[in-house]
Structure formats: C-alpha cells, structure tokens
C-alpha cells in the first residue's frame, strides 16, 4: 500500500473537510458582499419597525428598545451562518441522493453525517465572519445597540452560535435525507425553512409570541437557532440562564443528530443504485 492510498485518520479528515468548505464559500466574494448589503437593508427596516413597536410597549418580551434593535442585528448577522433562510448543504445532498451519486459517498471510508456536519461547520464559520460582521457593524454605527462589554459573554455567545449551527444542521440533515423516499424533496426543505423562520425568532423574538403559542415555540428546536444565542448576547440570560440555554441547545443537537443517524441507517438500507 502506498502512502497516498492510506486513509487519513478521522482526526484530520473532518477538520480538512471543514477547512475546505470554509475556502469554498470564501471564493464567492461578490455574493458575500451582496448578502451583507441585503442583510443590512433588512436590518435597517426591521430596526425601525421594532423601535416603533417598543416605543408603544417598552419592555415587551423582556427587552428594552436597545435590546430589541440589537436582536434585529443579531438575527441579520446569523442568517448566513445558521442558514436561517435556507442555503447550505442540503440541496447538494438531495441532488446527490436523487442522481445516485450518494452511492459513491457511502463507499468512502468516512461517515456521511459527520462529513456534512464538518462541511456545514466550515461554511458557517466563513459566513459568520463574511456575512455576520458587516451587518453587525452597520447596525452598531447607525443605532444604539446593547452589546456586552465582558469578553466572556461574547465567548459564550460564540459557543451558543456554534450550538445553533449544529441544531440547524441536524434539522436540515433530517429533511435532506427525506429525498431517499420522496422524488422531489425541495418542497420539504422549503417548509422546513418557513418553520425555521417562524419558530427561531427570525420573524419576531419568541418572547413576544403570545400565550400557549409562545410556550410551544420556545421549547421547539428552532428556538436554539437564534433565540438562545441572542438572549445570551443581550444578557437576558445570565448565570444559570446561560447554562440552561446551552444545555437546551445540546439536548436538541444530540436528539436530532441521533434521529439523523437512525434515518441514515434506514435510508442506506434501501439504497438501490440505478445501473446502466
């Protein structure tokens, strides 16, 4: 066996996949700049709307006006990284399932789910930098934002953003695998995105949702994708609140990744490669 043919150990494969995904998304500079512009425009519009809303109801949802406006910019900054409005690997994976290329992927001496998780983490890392920092700076210049001064809060926020990426990945992986059973999985991906927009805090902070609806959406996994990280940065969660928030994310991540693994097992049992 030559040196080239020996499989790389897992400890270097997955970081290499993540780094590759980072570079891949970093290639599209114009698209990234366009995304920053769009997110900033939406940030401006929503920030004024939130200011008008919180002007009528100060302390709505437990936020002051400055926190509410900051929530808008956190959301705009996280859209790319957490794939809150779609985007990411799922269309590509579905296309590989549909075309049968998935058979090649399954032959590789790597785990399918971990491969795409590493890929998605690399993508998210780039998009947090490339598409997140710009809108956040734009928001901070134009509005009074509530941003923490203690570096530890920022670190916990970043940890929570990573948690958000993993939960987001786990959901999208489940939806993408549905392509093994559906001829066209794009409708499911779309409905998944809408659920994400509705129940993550992207539409409105989940603390503003009324009554039972509010209780339900705050317990669903999508809450881990924006509401929890935002509450950590806004210092609405402090002390044990931060810990329960991170545990909430971790619990959903484990549950959904396990479900993904189970579905992957079912799916790969039924793979029939169409030959010619």
């Amino acid at each position, binding site marked *: 066996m030559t040196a080239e043919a020996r499989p790389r150990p897992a400890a270097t494969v997955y970081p290499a996949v993540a780094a590759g995904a980072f570079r891949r998304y970093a290639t599209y500079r114009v698209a990234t700049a*366009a995304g920053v*512009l*769009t997110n900033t425009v939406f940030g401006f*519009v929503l920030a*004024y709307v939130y200011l008008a809303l919180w002007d009528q109801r100060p302390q709505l949802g437990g936020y002051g006006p400055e926190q509410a406006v900051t929530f808008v910019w956190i959301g705009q900054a996280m859209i790319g990284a957490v794939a809150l409005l779609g985007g990411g690997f799922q269309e590509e994976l579905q296309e590989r399932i549909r075309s049968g290329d998935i058979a090649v992927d399954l032959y590789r001496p790597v785990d399918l789910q971990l491969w795409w998780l590493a890929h998605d983490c690399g993508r998210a890392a780039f998009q947090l930098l490339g598409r997140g920092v710009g809108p956040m700076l734009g928001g901070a210049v134009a509005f009074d934002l509530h941003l923490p001064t203690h570096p530890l809060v920022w670190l916990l926020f970043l940890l929570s953003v990573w948690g958000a990426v993993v939960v987001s990945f786990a959901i999208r992986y489940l939806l993408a695998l549905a392509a093994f059973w559906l001829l066209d999985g794009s409708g499911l991906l779309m*409905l998944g995105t809408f659920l994400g*927009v509705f129940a993550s805090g992207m539409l409105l902070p989940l603390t503003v949702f009324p009554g039972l609806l509010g209780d339900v959406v705050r317990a669903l996994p999508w809450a881990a994708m924006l509401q929890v990280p935002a509450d950590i940065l806004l210092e609405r969660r402090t002390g044990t609140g931060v810990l329960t928030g991170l545990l909430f994310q971790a619990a959903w991540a484990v549950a959904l990744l396990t479900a993904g693994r189970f579905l992957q097992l079912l799916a790969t049992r039924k793979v029939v490669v169409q030959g010619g």
Partner: protein
Amino acid sequence: MVDALRAYVLTAGMWMRASLAYRTSFAMSLLGSFIGSGLDFVAIMIMYSHIDALGGYAVAEVALLYGATSLSLGITDLLVGNVSRVGTNVRNGTVDTLLVRPVPVFLQLAADRFALRRLGRVTQGALVMGWALVALGPVRAAWSPLDWLLLVVMVLAGAGIYGALYALGGAFQFWAQDAAEVQNAFTYGGNTLLQYPPTVFAGELVRGVTLVIPLAFVNWVPAASLLGRDAPLNLPGFTAWLSPLVAVAACCGAALVWRAAVNSYRSTGS
C-alpha cells in the same frame, strides 16, 4: 411586439404544463409560496396583539399597505421573476443562445422556467387586501369610484415599479454575476419596508425611497390618499395619481440600463 409576447406566452405556458405534471410537488410549492410570503403578515398580527397602532396606523390600514405591496410584488415576481437568475446564464455563457433567437432577451429570460407557484404570493396579497377592505369599514364606505380606480392603479403601477427594479437588478448581474442578492435588498427589502407605515421610519430613509428609489409610489403615496392621511414628506394630494407616471419613467430608465447591459455581454472565454 405581438410576436414577442406570443413567444412569451407560449414559453410560459410550456413551463406551466411542465410544473403541473407533478401535481403534488406543484401543490406543495404553491402552498410554500403562499406561506412563505404570508409569514410577514403573521408577524404583523403578533405585533398588533400587543398594540393598537404602529406609527399611528391601525391594523386595517397596515393591512391595506401590506396587501397592496404584496399584490404588486407578487404580480411582478410571477411575470418577470426569473430575470433575477440571469447571472447564472451570463456565467455559463448561455445568454448566447438567447441572443440568436428572434425574441427580446428580457422576455425569454422572464418566460424561462416560468414559476406558476408564485401565484401563492399573489393569492396571499389578495386575501390580505380583501381583509383590509372589509376591516377598513367606514373609511372604505366613503370611497368614490375614483378612489376604487386609484386602488387598482396603485397595484398595477406598483407592479411596474417593482418590474423596473427587477430589470435593473438583472442588468447589474451582467457586470457582477454573483450579485443576485443585491436586488433582493431592493425588491424584497423594499416590500418589507412598504408593509409598514412611513411614519415608522426615519425622515432620510423615507426621502430616499420617495425621491431616489421611487418605492414610496408603490403604495405609501396612493394609500395615504385612500386612507385620508398625510402623504409621506407632505407631498400634495395629486401625487397619489403620479404612480403610473413614476412606473413608466422607472421602466423606461430600466430598459435603457438593461439594453446597455445586454450590449456589454461578451460571452464566456476559453
């Protein structure tokens, strides 16, 4: 001109039949378009569960603004929405094919992959508009036939203004192929802006979208007249009827830019 439109209708019809071949998939994507575009209204309803007026506008008034801009954008998105994907054609060099056919490139692009599912957004906007008209009660009861005409003109002219933005966004992609999202900032971003009353926004922003990008004429200016309110920037009353002129002017400007963009196309290398 008639031939060109005939080609558009034929191509669009072909794509409609193609999408209807997979009925479940089509129904789902239609529903998706309906829900996706309607989420913003859910947000507005949640906001109004906490307040009575936003920027001084009651929920029925905001619903009229929302319905008008959704209908306008929906019509434009349905008819010419696919122009926003021209960057892909430029990158692949497939604009070559379009240039040798005896139909305007713009119409070919608009008809290509015509997405009937976008009726979902139109339906959603029409439903909200209908609800707004019911909820406006006494205000609407006092409308003259001229006001009803203004309502129709508002929606159609709004579609024209959005159409100009789609064309400009498409033209820009001839120079920056990956910049498809730039136009989202103006079309979808503008749509989100116009769902809310002008009184919510800072003066400079309102001036910008009235005088520079004429988005305010999509609904803010005509709707102010319908609702008996002051127009943004205290524009005089007759400006409510200016939106068709603004739409025509915007479309002419966009057509010139589009032409320049197509002329600058150099195909792909190698």
